[in-house]
Every structure is written in C-alpha cells, then in structure tokens.
C-alpha cells in the first residue's frame, strides 16, 4: 500500500465524514468496539479494522467488507467508545455510500416466505431502511 496525501484524503472519505458526522482520525484503535461487538462472528473485518482502513484512505476496501451489512446498529460500541465515536454512524454512512446510487443489499423477493410469515413487521421496516 503506497500512502500519500492523495491516497489518504479522497473525496469518498470526505463524503463519508459528512454523512456520518464522525472524524475518522479521532479513533485511536483501542479495539474496545470490536471487543464488545455481538456480531463479529459474521464479520470479515472487525469494526475497528474498518475504521483503520478509512483512516488510511482505503474506502473501497471498507465498502467491500461484509461487516458493514452485519452491523445491527445496537450501539454497544459507541456507548462505550472512549473517543466518543459513533461507529454505527460510520457503518451507516458506508451503507449509504453503497445504497444511494440506487443499489440494494436486500431483495424483498429473496426473503424466504416462511420467514416473512413470522417475522415481526418491525424487522421488515428496519431491514428495508438499512438495506435498500
């Protein structure tokens, strides 16, 4: 990885900070977020690793990660973050970066019918908010 001003400070990264309202560099990589995350078993990158990639300007790599879709926005990380950073905001911003051009992550047609039958409405509303 070659680092330079151009690599670190990209338009994508700037947008990301605008959407999330978070200063990516304020993270000092203590890892408390990852330590307390309930969803890490389904993640390919740990939450703090996503932030680290963003610090280094590697936005695309973060976007390619499963992690941002597995985050359940439970706020366990941000409630405990010593730097007051809201990782869920950053995750949501990454999702938005993907979704806003019109892409979607969840296709309603692909949800199994049996699940659709029993899942509470709240889950459907929330999921479509997050994934489409």
């Amino acid at each position: 990885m070659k680092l330079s001003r151009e690599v670190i400070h990209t338009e994508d990264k700037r947008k990301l900070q605008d959407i999330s309202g978070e200063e990516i560099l304020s993270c000092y990589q203590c890892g408390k977020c990852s330590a307390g995350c309930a969803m890490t078993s389904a993640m390919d990158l740990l939450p703090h690793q996503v932030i680290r990639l963003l610090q280094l300007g590697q936005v695309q790599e973060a976007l390619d990660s499963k992690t941002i879709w597995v985050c359940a926005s439970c706020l366990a990380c941000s409630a405990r973050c010593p730097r007051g950073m809201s990782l869920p905001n950053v995750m949501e911003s990454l999702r938005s970066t993907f979704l806003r051009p019109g892409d979607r992550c969840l296709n309603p047609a692909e949800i199994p019918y049996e699940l659709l039958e029993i899942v509470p409405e709240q889950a459907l509303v929330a999921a479509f908010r997050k994934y489409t």
Partner: protein
Amino acid sequence: MKIGVFICHCGLNIGGVVDIPKVLEALSGYDSLGHVTDYRYMCSDPGQQLIKDAIRDKGLTGVVVAACSPAMHESTFRRTTEAASLNPFRCEMANIREQCSWPHRGEPEKATQKALEIIKASVEKVRKNQELSPLSIPVTRQALVIGGGIAGMQAALDIADAGYNVALVERLPYIGGHMAQLSETFPTLDCSQCILTPKSSEVGSHPNIDLFTNSEIHAISGYVGNFDVVIRRKAAYVNWDVCNGCGLCMEKCPVKTDSDFELRLAKTKAVSIAFPQAVPNRPVINSEVCRHFTQGKCGVCEKVCPVGAINFRQEDAIIDRKVGAVVVATGYDLHPKTRVGEYGYGVAKDVIDGLEFERLNSASGPTQGEIRRPSDGKIPKEVVFIQCVGSRDQENGYPYCSKICCMYTAKHARLYKHKVPDGQPYVFYMDIRAGGKGYEEFVQRATEEEGVLYLRGRVSRVFEEDGKIVVFGVDTLSNKKVEIHADMVVLATAIVPAHGQTELARLLKISTDEWGFLSEAHPKLRPVESLTRGIYIAGCAQAPKDIPDSVTQAGSAAAKVLALFSSDTLSHTPEVAVVDEEICRGCGLCVEVCAYDARTLDMRRNLAVVNEVLCEGCGACQVACPSGATCQRNMDTAQVMSMIDAVI
C-alpha cells in the same frame, strides 16, 4: 542483656505466610529474651508504643524488630528505641518480609522455620552490639553544579536563591543546554527561548552564582560537606572580562565553519557566539579552524576588536573550589545515527534528526523557522517521522524508552502542520507514551485535529530515489505493508548520556548503569541522590526525561543540597569499618577493595586507616581482611559467627 523481640505481621504480608504464634512459642524458651510479642503493624504508632513501653517496663537492653527490610524501617525503629532512652544501635531489624515471607509465599512451613532462624540470628547480633553514637562532620556551605542545561540552571538558581554560593560549570561557552536549541516545547507549544532566556540571564547575573562556562571538572576529591574541586576553564582566546560582546570580531572573521549549535544546518565563524541570546554573550575562538592557529596568519579579530579583548596566548585556567555538595546535571546526547544505517542518515540529506528539525522550526534557526528541507530548500509536503530510532531496540541500540520522543514527535508533526497546512505528516510509532500532564490530549489533538497520520509499526528502510525519500514501513493495525515517498524524514533518535559522562562519573566516584546514565541511590525513594553522599543528580544525566521532569528533579536536588546546608555539621552513621591496629599487618587488601576510597595505608606505621566519613559500611574490607583486623562496628566477625551459629 535482656533482649525484646517484636514480630510484625505487616498485615498479611508476613502474617499470611509465617505462622507467627508458632514463632512466638519457639522463641519463648530462647536464651535471655526479656520479652517477645507480636503486632499487626509494628511501624504504626501503637506498634511503636508497644516497643517503647516494653523497653521501659521490662528494662530491655536490646531490641529486635522482626518485620520488613532495614532499608524500609530501620531508622523508624531506631528512633523509637532512642525515644525510650535505649541506645538506637542496640536495635536491629530481622527482615522476615523481603527475605522470608515474600519469596516463600507458597511454603509457609519453611517460611516459619526461616523466620525463626532469621530472628534468632538477629538476637545473637544484638547480644554483642555496642552502644554507638553518630559521627560529626563539618560542612562547607557552597555548592557545585555540573552542567548548565535547564536542570543545572534550575538547581543552581534554587540553591543560590536560598543564599548559598554556587559554582556552575558548563562545558560549552554558553548555558541553556539543548533547551536553547529547541523551537517550541510540548505540551503548551510555548517558545523555548521565551521561557529559557530569562532564566539564563538570571543565572548569568545572580550574585550567588559563579558561572564557569567553557569549563570542565578537572579533578575532585573529598567527601560530603568537604569536596575539593579543580575546575579547568578552557582558553577562549578572548578576554571575557574586557569583551563587551559587540560581535565585530565575528563579523570580520574570514573563516567559516560548521556551527555546532545549528547542528549541520548552518555555518558560523571561527570566532563566534553560538547564538544571539547566549549567556554569557561572549565569543570563543575555535583554535582548530582559526587561521591564526592553523596557519599563523590573519589576526583580523585582534585588529578590529575595539577593546583589545582578543588574546591568542590565553591559556587554560585552573580554579580551585571547596564545596559541600555537588549536583550533576550533565544532560544528554543523541544516539549516533550511523548505527541505524537502514534509515539513511548521513546518506540522504533530507533525513534529519529531531534536534535538527528543532533548528528548522526555530525562528532564529537557519531557515528563520520555515520548514525547508536541507537538500534543496523546498518546502516538504509529505514528512515521515520515525520514532524509537535506537530506543527500545535491544539488539541495535538500547533497550530503554527514551521517553520524550513520542511527545516531541507529536509536537514536530503539529508544528509542521501549522506551518505547512497542506502537508501530510506521518508518524511511525510502536506505542505512544504520553504520560505527562496534558500529554495524551496533546497527542490526540495531533491525530484528531491536525490530521497527523499515525502508523503503528517500525520502519525497516529509508532510501533516496528521484528526489524523494522512500520509506518502507508497516501498519500493523491494518496488517498492511506501507510505502511512502516522502520529501523529508525526521528520526526520533534515542537519548544517550552526554559524551564524557562516564569519565566524569568515574572522577566523582559515582556509579552509572550499563548505558552510562547516573545511578540513583534508590529508584523510588532516593531518586535524586547518588550512592555517594553529597552528590546529587538531575535531568537527563540520570535517565531520559523532559523539561518539566528535569526541572522538578533539579529543584528536588537543590532541596537536598539545602537540607545538607541547614547545619554546620552533618552526622554520619557510626556503623562503619574500624581497624584493630594490634592485628593489622598493612597488606592493603582493604585499600584495593574499598569502592568508596575510604581506606588508605599509613606507610609509616604500616597500618590500614579508615576515613569514617567516606566509609559506607558495605563490609567489603571486612571480607577481604584475612586476619580479621578490619570489622564493621556492630557487625564484627564474632557477631557474624554467632549469627551463623544461631542458624545452623
């Protein structure tokens, strides 16, 4: 002899391991014990009262306190004993904590047996203890401070302000040390010069401070309260008493040479004042480059000097002083970067060290404070800072942390960002150690607000290519190898003791650690004292430290000096070596082994003699003496044999 034994539980420290009731029982039948008891905290007031009462009520003539190390509480319990009108040297400690309960935590039965033996041995010692009284030594109430950096200046000022004369000896022609070279200081970013120069001039004009710059310690002898110092003032070839510091000589001198003060970033003249605010503001001729000395011609300075101060025939002056205390504050140097060849220092011009970066930053420096790289004067847009160069590197440098680099690197990166807002600073670090007041916040501002990119990992290689400095590093947080094509690289090189410190320490007969830093008497409880009484240490001479810590330690050293000066005489422990003149054969083995120079041979009488003030009571001479002519007071061979006898 009626001896009392007082066993301390030290909470659970001893009581939790040693079966104290069992020890008490075992001691009950022991020969001539007048009193045996225990208490949870013997060092507490009620504990001490217990001892006092027992001495009075039972008429004890000896006391054994079985507790912690004598280093911890011997003086406490001896005071207690004295308060009960028993000679304090009739009180001994049996160390059943550090030497028993702590190391034998897992084996209480053995610990109990050992505690009993240690106590019995101490009882045997006390049985033969003499009543002693402290020795008295006169004190010369003048101080010597070696080193005119911030620590030395502070110590000198504190002592001088208290009304005592101080000789401040500085090797360089000016005072201020490395701090004079700094631009701004962390964590407040106030200008180094602004806080230093008022102090320097105060030192320069203080009625109680005799300033010897351009001088070195030539010799020193004596002991606490009575040191004889020989100072060698090197020839400046300028009569400073006459010179008015006008600078004309410097202006007219035709010889240019590298400026030591500006490191390798600027030139100066063969006759020069290091920097405009230098104290004293007097020039020195560098005889190694001056044309008068090298070629026997020129002499322009002599001709232009309006007051006739140039004196090519000046010689080193030898000055004798008698002082009662010494503060050593000889400061630091940077680790020779040639030993970190992979970082390209000395090969690539734009690889510089932290002090050089300070000069680049300094408003009075070679670039008037603009950050311009040395090779072509361009403003660097990407700057890589590398920490731990030589520090925390057991194999290629030093195992210790140089302590200030994390902070000054954060400062450098921030100052750079202030001056080059569109530039990108990178910092390669291993951990960030920011343990001072306001330090962590300072570093966090660097990362969060100034956009300094911290990369956790050590740089492996630095080389020059196409006008760029290529840096191979790693970011262990993202597990990615990192390559940066930078414009400039700044190395945070390890701090090492100032050159010549080891030799000076030898002269002063104080010890150094394996890296040459001066050793303190106790790392926690006596951090500013050397093991030689009357010699104190301050600043980076002891270990890497920053300005606040140096100033704190200097003040503390000064306080120790003032405490020493608070009386005309000092008392010295009488537990020192004595020689039995009837037995001594004058073989001199004791003289050879004495680490404190406390032993000499009286050639006329063919006897070894003890200088009781210098003697630290270490016992080396007693071990070396084959005939037993030498012994420690209250630790003679017969006592030792009785103690052994009690154990085996």
